[in-house]
């Protein structure tokens, strides 16, 4: 471990110094002797796996939790925050990952809410908001209701909100998790511009490319403590990742096609009517085929029907039109139209749900009990109407070993495992059923880099052995890295197709937001993509859903099922 201080900001005074911060929760030490120095005017990234202690550290800095040990200095003075109000007074603001905004209030009202005492609510406030909107790149009419805004603009409203309250140091908590690549670029441009105006940013992320792009220095947390601070320009993403994980990463890129001509899943003209009884279709004429040995990736901004597609295939929703066929034992495709979820699973579909705590696990039950879930009707777990507990237990032990699930034994409750280990267990369980098809929704969402690498490796291995995989993901790197073919979903339809060996994340991002459908293919100006998105959102209620529900969640919290 070595401490290297970036040259550029070496001489500027420290805006924030956290020294020896320790925070204990019952059973866990979330922060253990964390040291962080953020210099004035820099963008300082804080990196780490999930559970490394980033969130806790930021909550301490923002006054939401007091540290058990250690000191906080802001602009050279020792401070003690009793609540966020104190932190705001000291010039610290936080843009939360899940926006704290009221949909039915206007942009201006959202900014003013709770801060009426600063500049009143009249013309002075209006003027100040206009100034801040200018510097943060928020180009919307402040008098329209928030619900008409896209995610990127909402984020800017959050930024204006903290600036309005006088923040000079802005904490951005996973700000890019909810954005498509173009929006990320716009955000970074804004951050740089504001940096030039003298604002200081603390940028929480575990997307290493972004960290390298925007940050002037990066502090890495691992298992609750600081591993070191580095100059992101000088190290590679891979080195950064290894710093976070603490071990050598497996090499992600080795690809030879294993796609066969055997169709495993075929969707033809699949449609799903909206729950509200309207004419609107949540899924509209979806057709594709997944072959044995093939990973078919579905890209799309969340809320465009991916969740519904997965649930319809699993039999949790009833299609209003179209066919779902799965290859049977003899290789012939069999219509699943009237099969329920259990029959579909028995027919050979494995399922990694997007929300593992609600759909994938019985949290309070032991791991070996969770091994039964979804396979309670099939051998080796089922013996007629009885459950073979020993088989479940030994199979659970195997999964724990094969998939590197970090747990003392299989008797502990699923809830006591970290998210990544829970997910590894789910992947192991679903693959242990020897499925012909795996429906994987966001299989590595909210898991750490180590678990992600392992899950990817397991999916590739299964694919080599002829597994067909339908992969839905918001992580474009994952989609491009794993898929043999990618479809882009927009408002319930498959709008375009991409070859993962040639497509770039940025191109995918354009297709996901519908930009690439614009025929005169002028490179959109900064903000154009988001404005386009906003307009569309105003057009159809469905896309408005998109906007509100775009919590591409990262930590343990995940967007609920609609």
């Amino acid at each position, binding site marked *: *471990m*070595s401490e*290297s201080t970036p040259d550029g900001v070496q001489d500027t005074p420290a805006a924030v110094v956290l020294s020896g911060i320790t925070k204990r929760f*019952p*059973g*866990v030490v979330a922060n253990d002797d964390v040291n962080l120095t953020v210099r004035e005017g820099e963008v300082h990234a804080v990196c780490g796996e999930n559970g490394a202690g980033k969130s806790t550290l930021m909550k301490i800095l923002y006054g939401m939790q007091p540290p058990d040990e250690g000191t906080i200095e802001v602009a050279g003075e020792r401070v003690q925050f009793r609540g966020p109000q104190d932190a705001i007074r000291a010039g610290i603001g936080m843009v939360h990952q899940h926006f704290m905004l009221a949909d039915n209030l206007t942009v201006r009202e959202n900014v003013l809410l709770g801060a009426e005492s600063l500049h009143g609510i009249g013309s002075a406030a209006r003027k100040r908001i206009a100034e801040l909107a200018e510097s943060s790149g928020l180009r919307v009419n402040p008098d329209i209701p928030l619900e008409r805004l896209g995610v990127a603009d909402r984020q800017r409203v959050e930024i204006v909100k903290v600036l309005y309250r006088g923040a000079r140091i802005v904490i951005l908590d996973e700000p890019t998790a909810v954005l498509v690549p173009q929006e990320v670029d716009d955000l970074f441009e804004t951050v740089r511009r504001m940096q030039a105006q003298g604002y200081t940013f603390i940028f929480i992320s575990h997307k290493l490319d972004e960290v390298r792009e925007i940050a002037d220095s990066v502090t890495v947390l*691992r*298992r609750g*403590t600081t*591993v*070191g601070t*580095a100059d992101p320009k000088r*190290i590679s993403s891979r*080195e950064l990742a*290894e*710093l*976070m*994980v*603490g*071990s050598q990463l497996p090499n992600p890129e080795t690809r030879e096609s294993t796609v066969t001509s055997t169709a495993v899943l075929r969707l033809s003209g699949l449609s799903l009517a909206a729950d509200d009884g309207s004419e609107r279709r949540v899924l509209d004429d979806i057709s594709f085929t997944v072959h044995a040995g093939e990973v078919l990736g579905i890209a799309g901004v969340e809320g465009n029907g991916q969740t519904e597609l997965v649930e319809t295939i*699993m039999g*949790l929703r009833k299609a209003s039109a179209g066919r779902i066929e799965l290859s049977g034992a003899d290789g012939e495709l069999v219509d699943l139209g009237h099969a*329920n*979820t*259990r*029959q*579909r*699973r*028995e027919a050979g579909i494995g*399922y990694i*749900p997007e*929300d593992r705590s*609600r*759909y*994938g*696990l*019985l*949290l*309070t*039950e032991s791991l070996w*009990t969770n091994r*039964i*879930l*979804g396979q*309670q*009707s099939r051998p080796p777990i*089922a013996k007629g*109407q*009885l*459950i073979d*507990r020993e088989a479940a237990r030994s199979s659970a032990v195997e999964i724990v070993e094969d998939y590197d699930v*970090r*747990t*003392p034994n299989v008797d*502990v*409750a699923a*809830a*006591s*495992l970290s998210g990544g280990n829970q997910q590894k267990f789910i992947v192991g369980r679903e693959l242990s059923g020897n499925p012909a098809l795996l429906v994987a929704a966001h299989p590595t969402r909210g898991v750490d880099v180590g678990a992600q690498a392992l899950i990817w490796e397991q999916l590739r291995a299964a694919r080599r052995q002829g597994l067909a995989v339908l992969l839905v993901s918001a992580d474009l790197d994952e989609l491009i890295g794993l898929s043999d073919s990618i479809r882009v979903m927009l408002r319930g339809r498959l709008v375009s197709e991409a070859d993962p060996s040639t497509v770039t994340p940025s191109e995918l991002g354009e297709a996901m937001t519908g930009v690439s459908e614009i025929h005169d293919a002028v490179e959109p100006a900064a903000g154009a993509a988001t404005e386009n998105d906003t307009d569309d959102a105003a057009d159809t209620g469905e896309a408005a859903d998109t906007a509100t529900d775009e919590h591409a969640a990262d930590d343990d919290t995940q967007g609920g*099922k609609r």
Partner: protein
Amino acid sequence: MSVLRTRLLPPVLAIAFAILLCSIALVISGANPFAAMGAMAGQLFEGTTAVDTINSATVYYLVGLAVAIGFQMNLFNIGVEGQYRFAAIVAAIVGGALNLPPVLHAFVIIVVAALAGAAYATIPAVLKVTRGVHEVISTIMLNSIAGGLVAYLVSVDQFGVQQGNSVSTEPIPASGQIPGISFGAAGTIFGFVVIAGLLGFGYWFLLTRTRFGFELRASGLSPTAAAAGGVSAKKMTVITLLVSGAVAGLVAMPELLGRDYAYGINSTTGYGFTGIAVALLGRNHPAGIAFGALLWAWLDKSAVSLDNIGIPKEITTIMQGTIVLSVVVAYEIVRRAELAAEQRRVGRALATEPASVREGGTL
């Protein structure tokens, strides 16, 4: 070891707390708590009270099981009250009318009771899965309807026979009765206690060893995860309510086949609500419910003993309420503490490995 502690500590604490609270109440009301506790403990050694306690506990066990089956799936079957009363009157009428050889006669009555209970539970089950009517609402109303049905069926114009000021069904002949286990002067323990025990075992087996039991528990623990795992919520709701209703149907059988031989207007009501408390006390566990049933029955008997020595018998009601409340609270506290402890243990168990990781990683 820790499992035992998790299971047994909360009820012990809860009972201790309830005793403390009741002692305070007794002192305030001017009675001597030691005399009260002495009377309550002493009655256990009177043969008749002990026998009565076991007999009541048999009934409470059945009703606790019926409620617990619903609880497993987060179904609050308040309708156990109506289901058991409806089943009792139907079984009593059928049992009194039939003429069958011994054993078979009793068996038929028991089957009829279970079927009648299940049939009455079908109504809320169908309402819930087809129309989304919450089972609490529908079963409360059906309880009231059951009361009317029982009164109608037992009336002299229908199947009732009037004796003095009381009306009840035609008595079940000896061939349909279940002989008890006699303890001489102390009384007779219901023979049905054996059947109740077998049911408890069946409940345990069903829950822990069968596919149905797993699906039942999974649906209760997380309806969404169960659905994703291929469990049909509607099917489970219907089956669960029917099974709960069938067990509820047996609640009146110990008394009907072991002591009263007829069901009438003086037959006890309200067991269904006791069952909720007993199931809560027993944490839906077959052994726990047995413990809860015994405890509840003993407190019930204490009411008579305390009244007998001039101590307000309401103290037992206070104690019953306090125990239920504190057991629920205590289990929740212990559950959380145990989960935190387990997370801590998991963290500790894994801490050995990352130690090397912490050193690793160079720039």
